[in-house]
């Protein structure tokens, strides 16, 4: 299997890594600066092209209206979730559907250019992909990407869409805290309860993981998407303003004050007092800040992080004393008072051996290694961060899958009709902990087709399935006829497949035949993977197939091989479907055989005890 990379797609910085031949995770640095970090900044140039990374971050200072610095905050949102803080920084298209950020089109003053957050993220991912491809000297097509544990379905979908737009197949979305634990190799421990305290630039996240014999299980997660290192900087800015009586409120003064605050904060990690120069337009001023002042100005922020920790402990049914290891993630955890507070709450020294800026990317690389088949003895069991339910009579949310349920997870619900000859039932899927649907986050709507009958007679069972990435899919079955219905789900804030296809086409700026060539390459690659998987499954489980089934699979596989030699990508796609369908019974039997085998080896073990 070709190389799989691990990606930390962060709010402030992004990184890419891989698992080397010795099984050690490595970050791919910027080839010219050697920095492991790629600033998650994007800036649009007058010629319509984009700068990504450090150059974009620098350009954003002078061209804030054509740049985006923290797109992750907007992934999977709609215009109604954007608040006044966001509006002070960015402009948005005011229509429904997937959110679009407006950038100045500098080549035509007064006009704007609209981009969805997944498109912006895909530019960052492409840069990381290029970085990795340069280092390996081969194409990189597959990745594991980390997401905050609290990300809902829409936010996860948006992340996966960003991968697709960047030409990357996202094999797995891994929760960031889980990745951090993997980086520390804590999964190799016999049994331990681990707290991951992640304070980034703009977000805070705490998770409790139970590790046992190579298995990592998320017990609870919590956090605040509007609490991060930037809030601490802003408190220092307030302090400087008061002490030096600075009135100026313009963006330039603010930028200078923030830069000074960041410097002061860095000095304070080493020494008890910081003195910084601020080159204001009226002349350079000297400002001081002591650790004591910094601590008292930010005590409430620290307390908020601790509250989230206590709540997560409560959700997991654990107390602070039960925690065996505490891991610090995110640059903001370098602040001494954070370390002190965390140490006091959990009664133990937190781990900080690995750079808190790269630890998540290292963990993603370990998971990438696991998925490419390198490591067999580890397994992650993640949970769904928010309860999933449907809207029922009176706008009430009926929960189907509770928060913190281990994924994959499934729930079934039966639907019937209220009036005669009703042809469909509308279903509205939401995520959240509140009682009323209007207070929860809308994920998707869909219609279940129903045969015309008298009211109450039809019985349709809908299965809600959350996969190992925390992403929802829906299927329906008529309980009277046993017929499966396909259901088209309209995501509330996500991009539909058609929109993504169109974006891909547009983004390539390629002639028609180039795009067709690309579709052919993709279809052939997928066919090759499927043929390989099928061959292995058939050979490894020959006893599970009868002669007819075996012959059918062989025939379809040959058809597919023949089609790959031709140039029709649609025919290859069709035959992939056919071969997939033929393999379905075998796949089910392999699972059952696996279960049987496990239980048999158990009972042997029991007898010998």
């Amino acid at each position, binding site marked *: 299997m070709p190389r799989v990379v691990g990606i930390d797609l962060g709010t402030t910085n992004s990184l890419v890594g891989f698992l080397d031949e010795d099984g050690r995770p490595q970050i791919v640095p910027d080839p010219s600066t050697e920095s492991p970090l790629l600033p998650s900044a994007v800036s649009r140039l007058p010629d319509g092209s984009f700068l990504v990374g450090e150059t974009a971050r620098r350009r954003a200072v002078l061209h804030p209206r054509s740049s985006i610095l923290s797109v992750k905050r907007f992934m999977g949102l709609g215009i109604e979730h954007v608040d006044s803080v966001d509006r002070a920084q960015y402009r948005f298209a005011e229509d429904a559907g997937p959110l679009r950020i407006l950038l100045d089109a500098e080549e035509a003053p007064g006009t704007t250019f609209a981009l969805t957050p997944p498109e912006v993220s895909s530019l960052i991912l492409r840069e990381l992909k290029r970085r990795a491809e340069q280092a390996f000297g081969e194409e990189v097509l597959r990745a594991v990407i980390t997401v905050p544990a609290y990300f809902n379905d829409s936010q996860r979908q948006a992340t996966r869409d960003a991968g697709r737009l960047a030409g990357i197949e996202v094999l797995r979305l891994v929760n960031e805290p889980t990745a951090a634990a993997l980086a520390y190799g804590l999964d190799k421990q016999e049994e331990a309860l681990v707290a991951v305290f992640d304070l980034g630039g703009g977000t805070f996240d705490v998770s409790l993981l139970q590790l*046992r014999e190579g298995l990592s299980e998320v017990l609870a997660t919590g956090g605040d998407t509007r609490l991060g290192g930037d809030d601490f900087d802003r408190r220092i800015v307030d302090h400087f303003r008061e002490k030096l009586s600075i009135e100026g409120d313009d963006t330039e003064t603010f930028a200078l004050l923030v830069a000074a605050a960041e410097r002061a904060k860095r000095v304070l990690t080493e020494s008890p007092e910081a003195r910084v120069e601020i080159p204001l337009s009226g002349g350079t001023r000297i400002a001081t800040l002591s650790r004591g002042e910094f601590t008292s100005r930010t005590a409430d922020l620290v307390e908020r992080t601790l509250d989230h920790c206590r709540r997560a402990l409560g959700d997991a049914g654990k107390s602070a004393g039960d925690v065996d290891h505490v891991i610090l993630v995110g640059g903001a955890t370098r602040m001494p008072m954070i370390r002190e507070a965390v140490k006091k709450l959990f009664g133990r020294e937190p781990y900080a051996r690995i750079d808190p800026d790269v630890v998540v990317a290292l963990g993603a690389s370990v998971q990438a290694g696991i*998925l490419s088949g390198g490591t067999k003895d580890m397994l992650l069991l993640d949970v769904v961060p928010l309860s999933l339910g449907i809207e029922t009579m009176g706008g009430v949310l009926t929960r189907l899958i509770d928060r913190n349920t281990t994924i994959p997870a499934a729930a079934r619900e039966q639907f019937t009709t209220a009036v005669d000859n009703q042809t469909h039932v509308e279903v509205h899927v939401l995520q959240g902990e509140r009682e009323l649907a209007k207070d929860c986050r809308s994920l998707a709507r869909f219609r279940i087709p129903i045969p015309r009958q008298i009211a109450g007679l039809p019985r349709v069972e809908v299965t809600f399935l959350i996969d*190992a990435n925390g992403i929802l899919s829906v299927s329906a079955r008529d309980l009277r006829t046993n017929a499966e219905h396909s259901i088209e789900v309209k995501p509330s804030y996500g991009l539909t497949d058609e929109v993504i296809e169109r974006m891909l086409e547009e983004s390539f700026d390629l002639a028609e035949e180039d795009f067709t060539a690309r579709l052919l390459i993709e279809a052939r690659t997928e066919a090759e993977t*499927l043929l390989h*998987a099928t061959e*292995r499954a058939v050979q490894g489980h020959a006893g599970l197939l009868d002669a007819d089934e075996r012959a059918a699979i062989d025939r379809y596989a040959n058809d597919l091989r023949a089609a790959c030699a031709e140039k029709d990508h649609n025919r290859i796609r069709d035959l992939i479907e056919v071969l997939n369908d033929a*393999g379905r019974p075998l796949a089910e039997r392999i*699972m059952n055989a*696996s279960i049987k085998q496990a239980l048999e080896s158990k009972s042997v073990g029991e007898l010998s005890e």
Partner: protein
Amino acid sequence: MPSNADYLALLGFAGRPGIETDELQRRYYDLSRRLHPDRFQTGSAEEQRASVRASALLNDAFRTLKDVESRGRWWLERAGDSLGRENNQVPPRLAAEVFEVQEKLAELRAASGSEREALQSETRGILEALSSRLGDERAAVQSTLEEWPDASAEEEPLGEARSRLKQLLSEISYLRTLERDVRRALEES
């Protein structure tokens, strides 16, 4: 994925609801390792889908079985019975006790000054007694499940076991409500 799946059979405990949770956890982890989608990353799309479905069922089974109360409720339903709607009525064995507790809570709500303090500490005692009572009832559910007559048994012992389990579960459910009321009254006093 059947909606009435036999969770116990899936984990190799067919017909034996009195399972030990350590053994349950071991088997769950072992099966997870074999069925999880991570294991089928290089498999066909159908293998991946089948593994997601199988893992979802396994996770559901583990979640239901690991807690003795939810296991008891599930087992009762499999035996063709359930707590049903009458669950809101006070279980007979608890009637006198419930009456006393409610009386005490009414006094607490009405009281003030030093009298209230005395009642508060008395109510805290009630809360402790309730949680230890809950622990006993849960242990009784476990032993009822452990001693469950096997499928070949006469209808009579099966019926007895069923009604005993039902009684315990409805008492637990009632005690939980009572515990919540007591806690709320204490917080509000």
